[in-house]
């Protein structure tokens, strides 16, 4: 019987949170009795290992856990995961039927991993390459929302030669790519913003600037795409301290067991009209980003206005704790994710048109260069 794989870790600032999500998923699959589970750990340095799915988080504190078996991932039609250098020097292929991708941030959530899994012929849960990339690029995502007429805060690229934004400070600066709140800066004026651009290591691959609006608070909702589009209850995360500028990484992840342990109001007490607006907007975001799997969409609100902030295409704990109304058990959530992974392809390559006509009439390459 082929295994269901759980993929977690990865060279990302959210590596540790991903380990928590992955171990929860492995445990959830085991409890649901859906057959053998292969836990595939992606190390911070990009190596692959098969580990015991029953491990506790502590086993990963120092790095690769004891007893891990090194794997190779080959991106070719007969590729996939195999044990490198088995006992007789022969590679043993892992028989994987579908993979639950539990990576957060970095190459696990930006389409890189998804592309390799596509090429290796492994079915997987969550976003496709395109969905993952747009979800990870705050600039593209913001523009997509604005273009579709959804309410958002103005968001602009911050670069060394960019002009002052069309809006006034204080500003909030965010890394352009990245899933969590890591690297976020709040500055008073544009000169400071530009200074931060070279100083903050998280802004190396780009940064965006938005007006800082401390009057707005977060509202979040989970959306899943299979068997049909469905929205969870709306959540209001609670900031751990009144003085904190923003809902930071610590609030989100460190306080408890992934997102599931963070303080929150669930379901959020908001007006029916705001809730209706939020749900309609969330459904639209799902369509615009080609939602696959389960995502969490984050909004900003002052309880009357509503702004789309960002999408997490592979949220912490797979947003399992948000499914209180409607109730979806973790086992059911995972089963539906796997169902979708197997039945809804992430890619369809086509070669129609590449029928040799161009090649036949091409003549010599040297002629083309001349």
């Amino acid at each position: 019987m082929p295994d269901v794989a759980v993929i977690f870790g990865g060279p990302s600032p959210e590596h540790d949170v991903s380990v928590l999500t992955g171990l929860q998923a492995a445990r959830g699959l085991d409890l649901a009795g859906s057959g053998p589970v292969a836990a595939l750990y992606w190390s911070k340095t990009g190596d692959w290992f098969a580990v015991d799915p029953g491990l506790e988080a502590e086993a990963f504190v120092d790095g690769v856990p004891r007893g891990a078996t090194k794997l190779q991932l080959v991106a070719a039609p007969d590729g996939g995961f195999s044990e490198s250098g088995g006992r007789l020097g022969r590679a043993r292929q892992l028989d994987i039927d579908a993979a639950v991708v539990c990576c957060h941030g970095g190459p696990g959530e930006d389409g890189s991993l998804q592309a390799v899994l596509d090429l290796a012929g492994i079915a997987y849960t969550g976003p496709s390459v395109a969905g993952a990339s747009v979800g990870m690029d705050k600039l593209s995502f913001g523009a997509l929302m604005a273009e579709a007429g959804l309410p958002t805060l103005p968001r602009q690229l911050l670069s060394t030669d960019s002009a002052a934004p069309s809006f006034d400070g204080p500003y909030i600066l965010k890394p352009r790519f990245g899933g969590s709140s890591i690297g976020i800066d709040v500055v008073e004026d544009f000169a400071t913003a530009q200074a931060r651009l070279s100083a903050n290591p998280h802004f190396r691959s780009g940064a965006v600037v938005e007006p800082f609006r401390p009057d707005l608070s977060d509202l979040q909702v989970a959306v899943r795409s299979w068997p049909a589009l469905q929205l969870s209850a709306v959540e209001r995360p609670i900031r751990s301290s009144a003085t904190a500028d923003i809902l930071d990484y610590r609030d989100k992840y460190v306080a408890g067991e992934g997102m599931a342990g963070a303080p929150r109001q669930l379901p959020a007490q908001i007006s029916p009209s705001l809730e209706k607006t939020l749900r309609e907007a969330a459904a639209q975001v799902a369509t615009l980003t080609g939602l696959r799997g389960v995502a969490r969409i984050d909004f900003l609100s002052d309880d009357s206005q509503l702004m789309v902030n960002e999408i997490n295409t592979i949220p912490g704990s797979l947003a399992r704790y948000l499914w209180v109304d409607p109730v979806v058990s973790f086992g059911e959530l995972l089963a539906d994710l796997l169902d979708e992974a197997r039945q809804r392809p992430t890619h369809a390559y086509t070669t129609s048109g590449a029928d040799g006509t161009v090649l036949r009439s091409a003549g010599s390459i040297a002629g083309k260069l001349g």
Partner: protein
Amino acid sequence: MGLSTVAAAVSVARFHQGVAWITVAACGLSWVPSGLRWLRVAQREHYLAGSSTRFAARWWTITPVNRAMAATAVAAGVISVWRPLAGILTGLMVAAGPLGLSLKGRTAPLAWTRRLRTLAGVWAVMEILVVVIGLVTGLASVLTVVAALAVPLLMDAACVVTAPIERRLSEHFVADAQRRLQRVAPTVVGITGSYGKTSTKNHLVHLVEGTSSVVATPASFNNRAGLARAINEHLTDGTEVFIAEMGTYGLGEIADMCRWCPPRVAVITAIGPVHLERFGTEDRIVEAKSEIAVPARDVVIQVDDPRLAALADRLAAEGKHMVRCSASDRSADVSVIREAGTTRVTVTIGGETVATGVELPTGVQPANLACAIGAARSVGVETSSIVSTLADLPAVGHRLQAVRSPSGFTILDDTYNSNPAGARAALAALGELEGPGAADPGGGATGTTAVVTPGMVELGSRQRAENYSFGSEIAGVADNLVVVGRTNRRALEAGAASNGSARMAVTWVANRPQAVAWVRDHLGPGDAVLYENDLPDHYP
């Protein structure tokens, strides 16, 4: 008649031979529990040859019962040359003792790692080899008895034999690490010192992480194998600054790490009598630590210690760019100086004051912070950025954390410390605690202070003296001393008794759980306890 005498003689000889086999079996069986004990000690002592024998000498002489058992084992062993049956007694003693050193371990259980299995295999082969030699020479029972008595010695011999094997095995991890390091090409900062390494590393991470992407070796990954593992498993692509903690037990170890992981910035935090029993003298410690400076361009060094100040002058003469750091001298390149009577500090860089009134969180030592600031400057962090990040410096975990127990007394946790200077600082912190004890020593049920400690180890020839003076200093501060374990019992108790001015009560308990129980029974709201150092249970 003559014939029956011969028959009797033969049967006696056969009987003796049979008895000899019983002895061989008994002593052979005793290897198993004894081997497990010394395997655990070898593992806890980083597989350094000599540790099993050293600990065996300690354990067998620590209590009257163990001394009696050791004497019995040896005496019976000698007698067994003529009366093979006596060897059974040796086997029994070796299997059962030394009392107190448990087979499995409570604080530090035996972990069957690949390395330990190799060691166990080599050791077992050595034991069997001794018996084979016995069989060939006709001394089977005598040599089995000897082999039982010599388990710790043979364990050390096995450590010697496996050391080159382990080195060969680790070679490819080191090669992988070297390749990764060359590919990622971060600025490498190497930190060493007898103490303060981990704290300095954590401060430096905090100061640098706002400016550069930084990776530091995890706690305790500070030897050759650990450093290679840290690089292979933690050095992510795109890392700009890599901070490597480099520890050493002997000359040449840091030089070896520097060959394949050369730091551009070297940091030497402090020198003290840590691992002195392995180094011999403190000069050799200075020499070992200074190996880190060889490949470095910048050397950040704490110069409050005259030996390190001298080293700094020597390195400067060699053309190194020196960053001298101090917790007392404003004219140093970086100084972090406590403002009199407060928990705040003034920071100077190049003699100029850059920050005043900086509140230091619990456990942060100004000298370590000064070294971290010096290193941060060397990797290109702007002074303004350093100053702004100083404001939210995190406290140092397990380093003198003050917490309140559920029943209302204050706990100072300094269990991860093991050096005399740190112990003195912790004791001072206990004395400074507001409320309890200090203002009113021995003042009845409330405001009682206690120090719980097994004392300090690995101080070589100075161990007794250091613990003696620590005991004496405790008597000047606390109302109660709870000595844990036998390792430093006499030195601490004698030191405590030597301080005539004090009226301190001294209690002895066998282990940590008993000490915790004592604290729970004797302390209440308003009281305070300092837990100073903790020894794993392979120490007596």
